């Protein structure tokens, strides 16, 4: 499903964000990427949905290879990958509903009624049906984060990437969100969660990739969460 093969990412002024990262994930697996601030967690996720490309090495996602994918194929990849961004990336001029509906509109395969049904379903999973008509700036930080999560899961992605999905959530709501993510994983979606909070994977007892200054220092542990 997702495979990193000697992936190195060097940004301008020689910042090494990822350093020779190798790992492999099966279909339907659940992986936590943990590490301190600036370790390279977000960069790793960006490689998966190909917002960034490796300086050297290769990333394989589904049938797409980072070295050979053509620019017009990238949208296809992204439609099958749901992403919860660390900084939310909600469209400021759309309501929560429209933000969540966006991936469905983009895929162009759904009717208005279907869209409505799916969006409301996703919003109810994150407990935000009542705020569907609010603009992002009318939502609290945690609410915005949950809108981002609803958008990531609305289109039944084959891979779900969640960057710090509970950073703005209290323990109660955060646990619910992790449960939502686990449910999606249980339904067969591969999931990668980047987080600085090591308690979550410890509690769940699932796979952990530990990253530090761009290097994968630990990979494995846990039992297959299912």
């Amino acid at each position, binding site marked *: 499903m997702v495979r990193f093969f000697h992936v190195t990412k060097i940004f301008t002024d020689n910042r090494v964000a990822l350093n020779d990262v190798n790992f492999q994930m099966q279909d339907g697996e659940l992986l936590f990427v943990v590490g301190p601030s600036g370790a390279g967690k977000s960069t790793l996720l960006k490689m998966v*949905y*190909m*917002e*960034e*490309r490796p300086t050297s090495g290769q990333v394989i996602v589904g049938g797409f290879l980072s070295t050979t994918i053509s*620019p*017009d194929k*990238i*949208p*296809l*990849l*992204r*439609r099958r*990958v749901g*992403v919860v*961004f660390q900084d939310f*990336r*909600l*469209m*400021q*001029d759309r309501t929560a509903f429209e933000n969540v509906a*966006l*991936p469905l*509109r*983009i*895929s*162009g*395969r*759904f*009717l*208005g009624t279907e869209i409505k049904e799916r969006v409301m379903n996703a919003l109810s999973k994150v407990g935000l049906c009542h705020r569907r008509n609010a603009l992002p700036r009318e939502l609290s930080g945690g609410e915005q984060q949950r809108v981002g999560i609803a*958008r990531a899961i609305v289109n039944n992605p084959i891979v779900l990437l969640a960057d710090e999905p509970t950073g703005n959530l209290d323990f109660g709501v955060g646990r619910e969100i992790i449960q939502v993510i686990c449910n999606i994983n249980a339904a067969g979606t591969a999931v990668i969660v980047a987080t600085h909070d090591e308690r979550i994977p410890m509690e769940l007892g699932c796979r952990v990739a530990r990253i530090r200054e761009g290097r994968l220092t630990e990979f494995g542990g846990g039992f297959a969460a299912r």
Partner: protein
Amino acid sequence: MKASLSKVFYFLKETLRGIGRHKSLSAATLISTVASLLIFGVILLVTANVQRAADQLEKRKGIVAFIEEGVSGERLEYLKSRIEEIPEVESVTFVSKEDALEEFRRSLGTEEFLEALGTNPLPASFDVALKEGRRAAEVLEKVSSVIGGLKGVEEVSYGGTWAARLDRLLRTLAVFNVMVGVIVGLAVAFIVANTVRLTVLARRESIEIMKVVGARAGFIKVPFVLEGMLHTLISAVVALILLYVAHEAVSFRLPDIIFLPPLFVTLFVTWGLISGVVGTQLSLKEVLRKRGS
């Protein structure tokens, strides 16, 4: 099928939403494009009128050959045919002494002066019209001297230096007009294109989000292009209306100013639309190309 219909519907809704949500941006865009199209319209209006004025003045350019007193009818026929033979001459009209008097009376509105005279002092004449494109001052002079050399023709009048000066003036105006038209046309295209570009740039955040969620360039573009077209279309219509109002206001004072002929209106609207669409395309390309794929 149904899904693609819902897509069309979505695009239309998006377009209107784009305009509605960003009222301030839209207003700014509209004002700029209306203003620049208005300029373009004014220039076209001036061009149309200068052209027309030139045409009319050119048409009026002609030669009057005054005939000596007492020339016989036969000789008149002969003179007429001789003048008609000149290659530059389009037509020759005979104006008898009586016609001349009648015209003089009409133009003066009073007969006293002539009645005091007792006799008709006005000569008969030939009004000679020249062919189109053969009305430059030099031609006028040449033809006049030929006609003046005919026996039975007393005097020839053709405006002389005035015709030459008018020629110069019209030529200068035409060159000016083309120059202004080209510069303004290009400038307006730049302004419209850039204004649309600024609106797109101001919303680049949204565009980047759509991209990262998996939207194809085409999907992102459609509402913007539609919005750009709608904007420029509205602007063109508003500019035309303003232009018409201005025209009405001025034609109160200068009644023989014409409005834009249909050809120019088409040119005007098309030009605005092309500029708008090109502006949208360029800016979208720029924004879409940024940051990774």
